[in-house]
């Protein structure tokens, strides 16, 4: 068994809301509310959920880009939240992130070469120009960008190419983990496929671990080893990929999968759907008991009063539901 790369325990991120001068805090949004999981080297964990489920906040809190309220993150045996600023900076070399909007996450006034070199220059200020250039070219080649494009600016590139630049920038420090926050959501289908294949290739060749945050369950299926389903800041189900897609157990997982229209008209017409009623409840005021109880087709009295624990099932997956 490989050692654990990342170990997250009972992570919580709460945001105070409406903190006015006279009124004080009106409440808290519990964006992430007690999330625990482990990640092994070379593993991709897909994190899925709808808007407001806390998936992006979870990714940012692991990197400490957002201050967590409680919980621990252990990175290679080291308590990440206990680190002082200087040590945290050093440790962050090995954890990188790529963002959803490829163009907005690149400085428009910097050349592509400078953008990609930036992390390397920050951590190795003594590197010679020739060496820096060589590493930039290597990173560009890795993500399928022609090294001649080094001197160009981000606006000269298409969305897919900008995302490749973002990936090259994340790769240049040779990290062990990349957090991918909706990396293909802004891209056209034909480009999305190129980026998914690229991430798959980098992972297989370099043994990278990925936390792949996405609302798109079809994309997640193509890249993940395990899948985590979040709903209003809590894990509903955490399972091996194939087991999950063959037989989603939590009623919310079932509804999510059945809501996605398949690109196949005959299959679509034959499909039985689990249709959810209503919208996501406000994260300011999540339902008591099970958070999914207001929309759950299997809801019983106990769901309104008692929160189900995230408990292991026969095949090893974790499900938070009283009735599966």
């Amino acid at each position, binding site marked *: 068994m490989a050692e654990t790369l990342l170990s997250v325990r009972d992570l919580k991120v709460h945001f105070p809301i409406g903190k006015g001068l006279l009124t004080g805090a009106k409440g808290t949004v519990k964006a992430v509310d007690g999330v625990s999981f482990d990640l092994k080297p070379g593993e991709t964990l897909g994190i899925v959920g709808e808007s407001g489920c806390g998936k992006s906040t979870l990714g940012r809190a692991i990197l400490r880009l957002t201050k967590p309220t409680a919980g621990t993150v252990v990175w290679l045996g080291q308590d990440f939240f206990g680190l002082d600023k200087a040590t945290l900076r050093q440790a962050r070399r090995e954890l990188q992130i790529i963002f959803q909007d490829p163009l907005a996450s690149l400085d428009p006034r910097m050349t592509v070469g400078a953008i990609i070199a930036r992390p390397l220059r920050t951590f190795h200020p003594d590197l010679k120009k020739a060496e820096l250039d060589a590493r930039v070219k290597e990173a560009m080649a890795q993500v399928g960008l022609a090294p001649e494009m080094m001197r160009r600016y981000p606006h000269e590139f298409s969305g897919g190419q900008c995302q490749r630049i973002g990936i090259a920038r994340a790769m240049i420090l040779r990290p062990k983990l990349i957090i991918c926050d909706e990396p293909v959501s802004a891209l056209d289908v*034909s480009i999305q496929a190129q980026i998914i294949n690229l991430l798959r290739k980098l992972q297989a060749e370099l043994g990278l671990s990925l936390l792949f945050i996405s609302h798109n369950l*079809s994309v997640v299926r193509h890249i993940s080893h395990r899948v985590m389903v979040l709903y209003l800041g809590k894990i509903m189900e955490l399972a091996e990929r194939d087991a999950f897609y063959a037989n989603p157990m939590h009623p919310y997982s079932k509804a999510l999968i059945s809501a996605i229209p398949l*690109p196949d*008209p005959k299959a679509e017409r034959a499909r039985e759907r689990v249709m959810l009623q209503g919208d996501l409840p406000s994260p300011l005021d999540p339902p008591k008991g099970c958070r999914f109880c207001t929309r759950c087709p299997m809801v019983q009295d106990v769901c309104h009063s008692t929160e189900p624990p995230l408990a292991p099932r026969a095949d090893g997956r974790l499900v938070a539901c009283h009735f599966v």
Partner: protein
Amino acid sequence: MPLIRTNADLAARQAATPILSVRDLTVDFKLEHGMMRAVDGVSFDVRRGEVLGIVGESGSGKSQILMAAMGLTAINGRCSGSVTFEGEEILNAAPDLLDKIRGSSMSMIFQDPMTSLNPYMRVVDQLTEVLVAHQGKSRQEAVDIAVEMLERVRIPGARRRISLYPHEFSGGMRQRVMIAMALLCRPALLFADEPTTALDVTVQAQILDLLNGLVHELNAAVVIVTHDLGVIARMCDRVIVLYGGRIMEEAAVDDLFEAPRHPYSQGLMAATPRLDDNTAHDLRTIPGSPRALVGQINGCPFAPRCERRIERCTAETPALLRGAGGRAAACHLVMP
């Protein structure tokens, strides 16, 4: 419930007179650095009771087709060709005529409800405006009709919530308000531009169901523009695949998904990750990226990215050839 599409149904529908006919529609935009052709000679028909899907990637011109038909092309745009609604020419028509048609028999659902509802107006005023102005209803009658329509799109507490402002609704609820607004005049023709793209999947499923039921009931003709092949499969009877402002392929929905013939349609389908797919292999990709539409080009717009390209493809634009079963394709290498 999904629409029932028997061959007899489809055949009967094809025999009916089209409600909307688009012929050789071309839309050009004047930009700082020259002219850009967004739509390049597009022709199609839509009949009542039929849902036509237009699928394409960004820059394919799919939204501009709807904007031109609605008379909403931006000020730097110029449309040519012909768009007839129930036999009447509406392309570049006078504002009076367009206002009359848009308020009574043709309407549109936009992608982003927050930017297409007026944030300063209560929902009730936005909804009743069209009924008072076009159908001569009294204010009270109009409010009753509007409340009923909000109930139809399943907005809970419609009578109370109709007095709210758009920002007081969630994204899914706002999209319902837009659908209610578009259907209020019981249109014969409905355009929907990425109607569910901004929504979460569980809400998207509700909205698509709702839309399906309502257009079926009104026996309206519908044109849905989307980049999502799943939405096409779920909603449409017939599909147009658009690339670089031109129609690449047109077919009945089952035919297209069963056997796409144009290399671009084939590439698009193979590149789409599927929920029910085996994941051992890489996704098929289309090399390069969608072309930036500047100036006019010779040849097939997809040629630079096409793996089956021959010399003729870059020299001569393939015509859209129509074949049996309502299929059409624009490619030198395939017969429709």
